[in-house]
C-alpha cells in the first residue's frame, strides 16, 4: 500500500466516523463540531485529488463562515434532547431501509462499471508549477462565463430578496440615527465655562 493510499484510508475513516457522529451524538453543538471535522477531512481528500482551490475554498466558506453561523444559531437554541430522541426506535427501520437504498443506488451509479479504472483512468499528476486556481479561473471566465455570471446574479437576487422579506421597521424599536450622530459637533455637546477662582473664606 502506497503512502497516498494510507492517507486516503485514514482521512476516509475519519470522515465516515465524524459523519455518523453528526447524526448520532446527543449534544447539538457537538454534532456541529463533528460536521466541521467532516468538512475538514473532505477538504483533505480533495487536496489529494489535486483540487487545491476547491479544498481551500471548502474550508474558507463552509468551515470558516457557514458553520460559524450554524454554531451561532445552535448555541442559542434551547433544545430538549429527550423530546428530540422520542421515536428514534420507531423510525429506525425506515431510516435503515432508506440508507441502504441510497447506498445501493450510489453503488450502481458510481460503482466499478461506470467509474472503474478502465472507464476513468487516474489522470497524470501535474508538475509543481501547475496552478489549479489559474486553470479554474480561465475556464470560468471563458468557456463558462455565462453560466457563471447568471449564477452570480441569481445569488445577488436571493440576497436582496432575503433582506426584503425579513427587513421590517417596527415603530416601537429604538435605534441610533447614525447620520445625526456623525454630524454632532463639539459645540453642540460641550460648553466651556470660564470661572474665576473663589476666595477661601
Amino acid at each position, binding site marked *: 500500500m502506497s503512502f497516498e493510499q494510507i492517507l486516503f484510508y485514514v482521512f476516509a475513516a475519519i470522515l465516515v466516523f465524524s459523519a455518523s457522529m453528526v447524526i448520532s451524538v446527543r449534544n447539538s*453543538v457537538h454534532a456541529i463540531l463533528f460536521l466541521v471535522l467532516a468538512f475538514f477531512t473532505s477538504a483533505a481528500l480533495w487536496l489529494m485529488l489535486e483540487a487545491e482551490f476547491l479544498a481551500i475554498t471548502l*474550508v*474558507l466558506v463552509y468551515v470558516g463562515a457557514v458553520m*460559524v453561523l450554524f*454554531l451561532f444559531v445552535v448555541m442559542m437554541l434551547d433544545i430538549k434532547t429527550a423530546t428530540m430522541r422520542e421515536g428514534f426506535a420507531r423510525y429506525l427501520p425506515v431510516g435503515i431501509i432508506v440508507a441502504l437504498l441510497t447506498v445501493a443506488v450510489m453503488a450502481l451509479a458510481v460503482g466499478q462499471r461506470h467509474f472503474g479504472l478502465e472507464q476513468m483512468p487516474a489522470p497524470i499528476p501535474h508538475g509543481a508549477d501547475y496552478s*489549479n*486556481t489559474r486553470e479554474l479561473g480561465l475556464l470560468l471566465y471563458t468557456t463558462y462565463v455565462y453560466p457563471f455570471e447568471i449564477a452570480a446574479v441569481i445569488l445577488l437576487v436571493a440576497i436582496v430578496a432575503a433582506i426584503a422579506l425579513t427587513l421590517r421597521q417596527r415603530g416601537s424599536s429604538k435605534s441610533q440615527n447614525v447620520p445625526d450622530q456623525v454630524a454632532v459637533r463639539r459645540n453642540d455637546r460641550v460648553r466651556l465655562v470660564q470661572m474665576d477662582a473663589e476666595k477661601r473664606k
Partner: protein
Amino acid sequence: MIEMLQTLVMWDSWPTVLQTLVVIMLKIVAIIAPLMVAVAYLTYAERKIIGYMQVRIGPNRVGPRGWLQPIADAVKLMFKEIVIPSGADKKVFLIAPVLAMAPALAMWAVIPFNDTLVLADINASLLYVLAIGSMGVYGIILAGWASNSKYAFLGAMRSAAQMVSYEIAMGFALVGVLMAAGSLNLGEIVRAQQGEWGLFSWYWLPLLPLLGVYFISGLAETNRAPFDLAEGESEIVAGFHVDYSGTTFAVFFMAEYANMIIIGVLSSLLFLGGWLSPFQGWTDSWLGEPSLFWLAAKTSFFLFLFLWFRATFPRYRYDQLMRLGWKVFIPLTIVWLVLIGAAIMAGLEPWFGKA
C-alpha cells in the same frame, strides 16, 4: 557540524519518509521557537509602550529594566491551577484553547521570510492564509459556550458576529492585492512589488485604502482594541476567557499575540514589499539589500500600530462596529477594486505596467 551530526546518527541509513519528516519538523521548530520568544516580548513591549504613553514606567522589577517579566509571567501562569467550572462541557472547554492556538501557528507554514526561505511554497498561499485565519473564531466561540457562563457566552456571540463580518472586508482587500500582483503566492506578490522606484513601487501607494481596510479588519479579527468587544472588561468582565485560568488562559493569550504578529507580517508582505529594502538602488550598503531585517522592521512597525491604537482609541459600540464593517469597508473595497481593474487595464506605471 551538520555533517558530523549526520554521521553520528547514521542519517543516510534512515528511510526517506523519516528523513523528510525530521527535516520538516526541524524547520517547524525553527519557525515556532523564535515566534514564541517574539510573542513573549510583544507582551513586554505592549506594557512598556502603553506605560510610556500613559506617563508611567511599566514593568521594571524582574531582571534588568524588567526584561525577564514575560518569563516570570509564563512561569506564574504555568504553575497556576486550571479551574474547570462545574457546569462546563469539559471536553470542549479544554479543546477550545487548542483550536484558538492551532490556526495561529498553522498560518506560518506558508509565510515567506525572504526570497527562498519558506516552509511550504504553495501556489495558493494567500487563499490558505485566509482559510486558516477564518478558523480562529472557533476557539473563542467554543470557549464562550463551554464555560457555561453568561458573560463568556455574550463575549463569544459578539466575537462570532464581528469576525464573520470583518472577514468579508478583509477578503475583498486581499482580492485587490491578488489582482495587482496576478498571483496568489505570497512570494510572487512580494516579487511583483519590486521596481526601480524603491518604496514607491510597493502596493501601499496604489492600494492605500485597501491597506487601511486590511489592517483595521486585522484589528477586528484579532479582537484587539478598539474592537475588543469580545473581552470588554468594563461590560462583560473579560468575555470569552473569563472562566479560564493558568495554562489554558495563557494559550488564549499567546494565540492573540501570535495572530497580531501574523497580521503584521501579512500587511508588510502584501502592501509594504515584505523583505524588499526601501532604499533599493540608493545605497550600496546592506541597508539597500533585501533581507529578513526589513521584513522584521516592517512587522514591528505594524505591531507598534497595534499597541498605539490600544492606548489611543476608546472601544467601539457594537452597532458602530457593524456599521463600519458592512456599510463603510465593504463598499469602499468594492469601489477600489473597480478602480484597480481600470488601472491594470491601462497598465499604470510603475505598479501594473509589467503584466
